[in-house]
């Protein structure tokens, strides 16, 4: 082996703890890259593979006359296929459970051209069995349904019994969201059934709405969807939404894009930290090796040889960290994809080995290492032999510190504390590196912690501050508003308010947004419409309050007039001719979903119902204090007027359940952040002690107890850490805000909400990591060889 290379190996062995820390950081960075990047690719491939197979609609047109719209859209060159269907939201009973479900029309024979289903168990629809239905897999799992079982669906003439012919998967319901406003639905409170045209036509007209589904051709130009949406509206459609806005796909894409962002941000953070630590360590080594480098240069070694010798450290550690990182990352990606697609019950999981990811993974480690090593290596290569052989001068510079100049009383501190303060400016490059490292580590911990805070604060806002009702009761038949309280009277019910939800498109100029317009009683106590500024807004008749995402989506402001277009045949009375205009009274800051609110009378007017005492299909209910929610819910469900009860608490619990997974994820990032912080701070602090080993030994020789030296070193390190925390927390806050904003949409409003304790907790965590990471350095101080300082220069 080349002697220089042997020396390199021995140098690494001599500082194995530091190099192991750097290698581990690079390993984590590469592992995260390979795992998250491949998982991102796998999930995308899994989704899109299924979407293509099932001809998932690129555009859904709601309302209007489907035949007219379909004819109009089929004429467009960009369209590959069009299907029309009816969709009904109505009560369904399975065994003793009753909930508000959905029946989606499918052709009785053959497959639709758009939005097909794939049969997982049993068979498809049979034209000879009008009461035969297919059950979507989530509903089948929630109610343990198998082919041959029966369910009850509310029809015009009462409950209609249907037989399950098969269990199917649908691209529309991979994530079983009821709508964009209700992305989270508790298990057992929603379910989708696919039925033939005869069966669907028997369902109450007021529960049905028409949809026209469009699949684009492969050569559809950019902007084709916008053109088709305009054409559909021109042809009488109420609203449209694209694949990107489809509730299930949008919810899944939030996760997938999270993987995508993770595959870039986390590896960057870890590789950056590893590179910083490498730069610090090599910088120190080059300073220590100055004499040796001088000898080599004087002996005829070329600059390039010296350069590559020190670059070799970065390359070698980068390779050592990246090869296992890339392999383990690839394996982890397969496991993540398997678990993820399993949890989401995606029938076709695509798990591919991607050589390119492996190659990139293997390369980024040494690239980061080499980039970090380049600076110190170049300094080594440019060392003049004569200069190197002149011996050591004092390391670092003298001078009063900035702190002493700004705060003169600091000059009266005991000398050992002044020493600690001045040491910060002694090796500025290393101090800056430490500060940057602390800031990076702070960011990772703070962003993770801030995400937990944000989600908890937002859930509290949604389910405690805004939702003041304990349950929404869906009625079997609309009941006059004044009679609702009597119809849902049960033990444990403290208050009841009628509510009328109208599926509608909100139109402002050229912009439109399909949502649910909720009509509430004036002065409602069931829902607090909290504005972004923290106030409460109440719409008067003729006014509307919009979810704040619509402020940007529709480009509207308070006082503007908007038009409401109800989805046709959604209400029994039919929409009145002409579309009503409402004045925007304010915006509501709701974290989950984007809805619109108005008064009960205005909603009734829009739906073509009497404005006085209109019939309503649902009610909001508050339970009596101390009542058992489950028991009250059961009593309500047993009432003849009640089709289903959706408990607010169940939604909150579901959100908390998802939060559990989120906590696990954040827990992992917190641990990784801690490891990174430890590795980084450990290396910079080790260099800090190593650089001054001789001085410290001299002080020990002069009788300074190692505990005193330990306190001086600790003071320096704590000061550096605290200085790093200031920019770190500011940077981390900005990063967390950007990160959360990237997840925000009309589905979820993720405004960063960080509790003050999180700032303190993050700072404390970093300080603890800093104190822990200096333990090896302090042990080094205690074990300094006093005799060595006399015999030779310590290195």
């Amino acid at each position: 082996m080349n002697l220089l290379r042997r020396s390199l190996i021995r140098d690494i062995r001599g500082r194995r703890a530091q190099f192991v820390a750097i290698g581990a950081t690079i390993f984590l960075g590469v592992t995260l890259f390979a795992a998250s990047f491949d998982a991102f690719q796998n999930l995308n491939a899994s989704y899109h593979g299924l979407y293509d197979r099932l001809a998932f609609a690129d555009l859904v047109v709601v309302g209007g006359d489907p035949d007219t719209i379909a004819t109009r859209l089929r004429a467009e060159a960009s369209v590959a296929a069009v299907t029309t269907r009816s969709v009904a939201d109505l009560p369904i009973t399975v065994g003793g459970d009753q909930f508000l479900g959905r029946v989606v029309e499918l052709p009785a024979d053959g497959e639709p051209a758009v939005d097909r289903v794939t049969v997982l168990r049993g068979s498809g629809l049979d034209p000879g069995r009008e009461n035969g239905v297919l059950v979507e897999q989530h509903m089948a799992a929630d109610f343990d349904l198998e082919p041959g079982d029966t369910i009850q669906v509310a029809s015009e003439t009462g409950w209609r019994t249907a037989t399950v012919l098969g269990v199917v998967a649908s691209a529309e319901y991979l994530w079983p969201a009821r709508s964009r406003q209700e992305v989270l639905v508790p298990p057992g409170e929603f379910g989708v059934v696919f039925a033939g045209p005869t069966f669907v036509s028997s369902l109450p007209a007021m529960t049905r709405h028409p949809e026209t589904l469009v699949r684009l051709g492969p050569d559809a130009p950019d902007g084709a969807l916008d053109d088709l949406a305009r054409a559909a509206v021109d042809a009488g459609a109420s609203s449209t939404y694209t694949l990107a806005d489809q509730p299930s796909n949008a919810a899944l894409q939030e996760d997938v894009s999270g993987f995508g962002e993770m595959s870039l941000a986390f590896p960057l953070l870890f590789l950056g930290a590893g590179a910083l630590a490498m730069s610090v360590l090599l910088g120190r080594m080059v300073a220590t090796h100055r004499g040796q480098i001088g000898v080599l240069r004087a002996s005829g070694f070329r600059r390039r040889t010296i350069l590559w010798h020190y670059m070799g450290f970065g390359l070698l550690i980068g390779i050592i960290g990246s090869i296992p990182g890339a392999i383990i990352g690839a394996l982890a990606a397969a496991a993540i994809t398997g678990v993820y697609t399993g949890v989401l019950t995606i029938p076709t999981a695509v798990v591919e080995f991607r050589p390119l990811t492996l190659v990139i993974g293997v390369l980024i480690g040494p690239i980061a290492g080499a980039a970090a090593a380049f600076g110190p290596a170049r300094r080594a290569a440019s060392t003049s032999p004569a200069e190197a052989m002149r011996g050591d001068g004092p390391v670092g510079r003298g001078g009063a510190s900035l702190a002493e100049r700004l705060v003169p009383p600091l000059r009266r501190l005991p000398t050992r504390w002044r020493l600690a303060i001045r040491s910060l400016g002694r090796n500025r490059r290393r101090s800056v590196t430490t500060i940057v490292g602390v800031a990076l580590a702070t960011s990772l911990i703070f962003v993770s912690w801030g995400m937990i805070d944000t989600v908890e604060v937002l859930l509290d806002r949604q389910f405690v501050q805004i939702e003041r009702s304990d349950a929404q009761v869906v009625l079997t038949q609309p009941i006059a508003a004044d009679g609702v309280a009597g119809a849902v009277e049960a033990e444990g019910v403290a208050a009841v308010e009628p509510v009328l939800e109208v599926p509608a498109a909100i139109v402002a100029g050229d912009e439109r947004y399909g949502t649910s317009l909720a009509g509430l009683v004036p002065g409602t106590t069931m829902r607090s419409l909290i504005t972004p500024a923290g106030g409460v807004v109440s719409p008067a008749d003729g006014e509307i309050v919009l979810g704040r995402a619509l402020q940007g989506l529709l480009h509207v402001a308070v006082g503007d007039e908007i038009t409401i277009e109800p989805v046709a045949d959604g209400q029994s009375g039919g929409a009145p001719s002409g579309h009503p205009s409402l004045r925007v009274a304010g915006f509501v800051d709701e974290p989950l979903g984007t809805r619109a609110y108005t008064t009960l009378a205005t909603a009734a007017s829009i739906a073509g119902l009497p404005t006085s005492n209109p019939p309503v299909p649902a009610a909001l209910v508050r339970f009596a204090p101390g009542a058992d929610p489950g028991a009250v819910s059961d009593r309500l469900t047993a009432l003849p007027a009640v089709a289903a009860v959706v408990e607010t608490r169940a939604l909150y619990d579901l959100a908390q359940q998802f939060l559990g997974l989120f906590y696990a994820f954040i827990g992992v990032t917190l641990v990784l952040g801690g490891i990174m912080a430890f590795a980084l701070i450990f290396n910079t602090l080790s260099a800090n002690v190593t650089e001054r080993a001789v001085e410290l030994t001299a002080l020990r020789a002069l009788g300074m107890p190692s505990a005193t030296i330990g306190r001086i070193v600790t003071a320096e390190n704590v000061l550096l850490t605290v200085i790093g925390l200031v920019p770190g927390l500011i940077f981390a806050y900005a990063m967390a805000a950007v990160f959360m904003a990237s997840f925000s949409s009309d589905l979820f409003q993720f405004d960063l909400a960080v509790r003050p304790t999180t700032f303190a907790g993050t700072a404390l965590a970093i300080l603890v990591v800093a104190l822990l990471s200096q333990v090896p350095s302090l042990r080094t101080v205690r074990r300094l060889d006093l005799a060595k300082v006399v015999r030779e220069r310590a290195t």
Partner: protein
Amino acid sequence: MVVTEGRGASDPGRAAAPAVRLVDVRKDYGSGELAVRALRGISLDIATGQFVVLLGPSGSGKTTLMNVVGGMEPATSGTIEVAGRRLADLDAEALTTFRRESVGFVFQFFNLIPTLTALENVQLVAELVAAPDDAARRAVEAVGLAERADHFPGAMSGGEQQRVAIARALVKDPPILLCDEPTGSLDLDTGRQVLGVLRDVSRAAGRTVMLVTHNSAIAAMADRVIRLRSGEVVDDRLVPEPIAPGAVTW
């Protein structure tokens, strides 16, 4: 720094209680066949106030001898008494106290802290032993650096830095000063200045000085010269008429 009169070197080797007593001191590094025998049964007494030069070639054991006398590493066997204390009886903490109270070190490489001024480097140690407020400044004055007290090491010559290191060792007022090649990295003129300071602090305070060097020219200014070779004392003699440090040449 406390300056006392009457412990001069005018009576070398005949003080009543020796400042340093070594009895059959051995020091091995490693064990078995690979053991390096750095000291091979050294016995000697060094009187209080004596200026002793330990002379010998590289590897003769002179630095090891100084290290065991200074309590920086233990002897393998034998008895070492310094300033009335048996070092073998002291644990690590007591050895730290011993070094703080009884010995001062001056190294070939000055090992000053670059972020502290000359005065502050001395103060750092003065605070350690709770010396009087002006002790550090007096120590700096004693080595002739009153005008340079507020300069940082980076702005001082090698000789000045070594004098700061001597002041740092003296500020504790140790009865024994151990110097390892204090002129090893200095030119002749600067070396003479440093030797002059060492000679002065020895004479003025009656302080025992053990100076390790391989430079035989320095021996001429000592009260006593001990030559070592291969870990053994091969010659130990008094210098009848020590020359002035300024007359030393090499």
